[in-house]
């Protein structure tokens, strides 16, 4: 693996612990099968719940008759939307009322179903098999309505409306709801970002390229289906064991949906078997809670893979028209994007993610971006790793590649000609803070892969970059308890999706002068740690790391005071240097961390320190991919011959897990580019809702994925960290498309680039030549 770290800004070996590769603390449990995931808890007396899901993509629910199901032996209770207080108290409306009201429609639909697979009712029984049989006995009377299956149909004049009370909001900022235009339709939001004079900019261009790009609905594809257990004991307190990206988010939503105080809910995190944004939202917890209350038993609910595909949020299908003008030198004079993202059944696509990022790695004075969030009869979309960014980058980074060919420039030279520097405005109008965009691009251009011979016919090389600005700052808490043997326990509420326990523990070790093994990290329930936002937005190693470092600073302060007591000096006379407490009055007086830890009980009791952090500042960063592909002109099959991924990580905490993020994001991007999509019948039924037919990349599809880590430190973190989780999925879509397009000599602008699509494109090219 060509892991390159440090390109001149970071000092190798600058840190004792950060940048090393210790074994993760939770590793042994995970390689022996001892780790417990969402479905791995079986409480005594557990009953099993199953969900009845809509067979229609769009229908009014006229009546639900559960009597036959209830009469079945082994069935203990049923639930419908009548059992969810938030639905009974609040009409479904958008831009007003409690935020969790919309989510409740995903738990149990009220008056209408808006996608095939939407939950309608639930049964709890003594076994999952009985519950499943009983679900089939529930009789629902539907009035089937016309299906609005995609943005094209949804935006047509006179289209069937999904929501009678949905009106279009217009906004010029990502934040805030915007102004209500009063226009009824299926468009929820129109976001417009504007800089300079777009018409003048295009007048100044010598070459203008305008192209259209399409992507399809894709799923995060986490291997662990949603699973939870709820126990609502008679004293009124509700405990939920679940696999989620955010226990406090689950607590808040469950309390709101059930109309009970948040303090009456405790959420216990199980290990999470992949989320990628998709498990930021829960589905079954309130239903399991209701069924537990009705039966007096713990209730466990586990989705099938089909339910995961049909009933949980995928990412948006999209349409993007991209127009870019350049002058003779290759400088971009103007860029315009018209972006339509499918939100699924309820507003909330990640369109803004695409709109704010796609052009932002470049300095462009004249920009006009119009983004539309459009509802249609598909599952409500959920976050998927850098939400909205891959679609936007697919369009812009493909267009730049095409433009480079058109004007005869090297594709990286074209990007470097226009790269944004610190202080230049992003497409949002906000100037870039400390960000190493040019540094990353220079590394790509100089990398041996970029100029290596392709070595055969029908081969092509594609490059693309992916920019994302992370905020972070939703809140992280951490507690450190010092143990008498000189090790520490580290407690956080940050679900570990990818190795963040070890990455945070390493920061504590660095701060306290300990080894990574001396820190025992654990992720605990909502009763046992301060409020902590969900694991997403590439923020956990940064935000929770910073909270943990702050707690470590408090530990040092308190232990310095203990040393001062032992030495009979003032606390300010004690310094902590390289893991040792030193008396400045008498430098012979020293305690190692471990020695002093053994004296805490005799000097005032245990040391336990908590801190929180909500400053944010994960910041912007650039990732990139280079792919070499070979296309079989007979079959249209694409083989990826070589793959290199680049990321500005600021400072790698644990390089192996940074590489893992880069390799995993690359895999998901390749799947998005070449294989993955939801196939629908005209009525809106997904026909490939299994892992065999929804073909995610397997081990045979990929080569090794070489990683280049670039460390351009982030001044907003004590050790210079940036985010790692999301950026690596942004660039692969365009990089694969560019490679395939160059291999076959014609442009692929619709994903996925299936063998059939490639053969058609080759045929079309040959016909026109």
């Amino acid at each position, binding site marked *: *693996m060509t892991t390159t770290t440090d390109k001149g800004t970071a000092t190798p070996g600058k840190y004792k612990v950060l940048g090393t*590769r210790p*074994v*993760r603390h*939770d*590793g*042994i449990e*995970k*390689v*022996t*099968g*001892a*780790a*417990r*995931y969402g*479905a*791995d808890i*079986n409480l005594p007396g557990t009953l099993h719940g199953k969900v009845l899901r809509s067979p229609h993509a769009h229908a009014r629910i006229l009546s639900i008759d559960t009597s036959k199901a209830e009469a079945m*032996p*082994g069935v203990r209770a049923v639930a419908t939307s009548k059992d969810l207080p938030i639905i009974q108290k609040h009409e479904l409306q958008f831009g007003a009322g409690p935020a969790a009201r919309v989510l409740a429609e995903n738990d149990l639909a009220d008056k209408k179903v808006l996608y095939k697979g939407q939950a309608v009712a639930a049964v709890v029984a*003594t076994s999952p*098999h*009985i519950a499943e049989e009983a679900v089939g006995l529930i009789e629902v009377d539907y009035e089937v309505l016309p299906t609005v299956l995609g943005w094209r149909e949804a935006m047509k004049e006179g289209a069937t409306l999904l929501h009678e009370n949905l009106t279009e909001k217009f906004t010029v900022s990502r934040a805030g709801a915007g102004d209500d235009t009063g226009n009824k339709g299926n468009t929820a939001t129109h976001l417009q970002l504007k800089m300079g004079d777009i018409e003048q900019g295009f007048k100044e261009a010598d070459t203008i390229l305008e192209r259209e790009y399409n992507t399809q609905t894709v799923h*995060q594809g*986490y*291997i*662990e*289906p949603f699973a939870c257990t709820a126990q609502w004991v008679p004293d009124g307190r509700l405990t939920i064991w679940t696999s989620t990206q955010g226990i406090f988010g689950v607590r808040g939503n469950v309390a709101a949906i059930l109309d009970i105080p948040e303090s009456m809910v405790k959420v216990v995190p199980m*290990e*999470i*078997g*992949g*989320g*990628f944004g998709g498990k930021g939202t829960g589905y079954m917890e309130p239903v399991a809670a209701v069924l537990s209350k009705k039966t007096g038993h713990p209730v466990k609910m586990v989705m*099938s*893979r089909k339910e995961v595909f049909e009933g949980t949020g995928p990412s948006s299908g999209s349409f993007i028209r991209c127009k870019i003008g350049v002058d003779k030198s290759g400088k971009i004079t103007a860029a315009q994007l018209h972006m339509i993202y499918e939100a699924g059944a309820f507003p909330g696509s990640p369109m803004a993610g695409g709109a704010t990022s796609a052009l932002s790695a470049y300095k462009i004075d004249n920009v006009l971006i119009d983004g539309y969030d459009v509802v249609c009869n598909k599952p409500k979309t959920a976050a998927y790793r850098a939400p909205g960014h891959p679609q936007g980058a697919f369009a812009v980074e493909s267009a730049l590649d095409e433009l480079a060919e058109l004007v005869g420039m090297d594709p990286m030279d074209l990007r470097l000609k226009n790269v944004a520097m610190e202080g230049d405005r992003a497409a949002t109008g906000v100037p870039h803070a400390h960000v190493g965009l040019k540094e990353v691009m220079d590394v790509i251009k100089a990398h041996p892969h970029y100029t290596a011979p392709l070595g055969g016919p029908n081969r092509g090389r594609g490059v693309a970059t992916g920019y994302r600005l992370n905020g972070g700052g939703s809140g992280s808490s951490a507690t450190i308890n010092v143990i008498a043997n000189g090790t520490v326990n580290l407690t956080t509420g940050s679900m570990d*999706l*990818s*190795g963040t326990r070890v990455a945070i523990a390493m920061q504590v070790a660095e701060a306290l002068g300990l080894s990574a093994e001396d820190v025992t990290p654990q992720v605990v329930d909502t009763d046992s740690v301060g409020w902590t936002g969900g694991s997403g937005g590439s923020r956990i190693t940064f935000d929770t790391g910073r909270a943990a470092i702050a707690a470590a600073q408090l530990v040092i302060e308190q232990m310095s005071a203990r040393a001062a007591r032992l030495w009979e000096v003032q606390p300010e006379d004690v310094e902590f240097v390289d893991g040792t407490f030193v008396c400045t009055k008498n430098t012979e007086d020293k305690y190692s961390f471990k020695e002093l830890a053994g004296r805490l009980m005799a000097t005032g009791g245990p040391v336990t320190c908590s801190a929180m952090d909500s400053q944010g500042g994960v910041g912007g960063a650039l990732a990139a991919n280079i792919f070499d592909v070979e296309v079989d002109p007979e079959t249209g099959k694409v083989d990826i011959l070589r793959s290199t991924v680049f990321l500005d990580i600021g400072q790698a905490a*644990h390089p*192996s*897990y940074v*590489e*893992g*993020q880069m*390799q*995993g994001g*690359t*895999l*998901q991007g390749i799947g998005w580019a070449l294989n993955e999509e939801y196939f629908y019948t005209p009525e809106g039924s997904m026909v490939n809702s*299994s*892992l*065999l037919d929804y073909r*995610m990349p*397997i*081990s*045979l599809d*990929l080569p*090794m*994925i070489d990683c280049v880590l670039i460390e351009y430190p982030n001044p907003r973190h004590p050790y210079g960290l940036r985010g790692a989780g999301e950026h690596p999925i942004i660039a692969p879509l365009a990089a694969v498309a560019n490679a395939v397009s160059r291999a076959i000599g014609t442009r692929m602008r619709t994903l996925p680039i299936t063998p059939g699509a490639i053969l058609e494109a080759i045929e079309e090219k040959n016909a026109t030549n």
Partner: protein
Amino acid sequence: MADKIHVHSTINGTEVDFLCESRESLLEVLRDTLGMTGTKEGCNDGNCGACTIVLDGRIVDCCCVLGVEAEGKSILTIEGVASPEGLHPLQQAFLEEAALQCGICTPGFIVAAKSLLEREPDADEARIRHWLAGNLCRCTGYDKIIRAVLKAGEMINQGDGGRSSSAAGGVGAADSRDVYND
């Protein structure tokens, strides 16, 4: 409620008796009846490999095996891969190579890879990719998993492992009917 059937099998070297309904999968029996949750469910239709076990010397997705089919058979699950002396070389290599992120697919990969290395400790990258094509991972891009299996093969060749290879369930002579071996 369906009648239950008595089944006798050997799991990780220990004789086990259990009752199951004829419709229950072996995955359900392991996880729900016997409390052995190390074997995971990712799809319940034989497409993801998270529930890979060794059944009389062959790797199978046990979501597609009925509990009653375990009668008289010998089973190895992830819980039987480590020995009292320590981790199996594959487990050690997965830790050292950081070959897991979320870890939900890891038990299936380790059980499947163990079955390969017992037959072919010299398996190269292409062979390993081929053998593991029935195990899905969404986090790692497979890179570090392949490297971990290569490393474990080296460890086994150097006599640094195979400690648990006598665990039951396991290891028959090379079986030409391997599900992944075409």
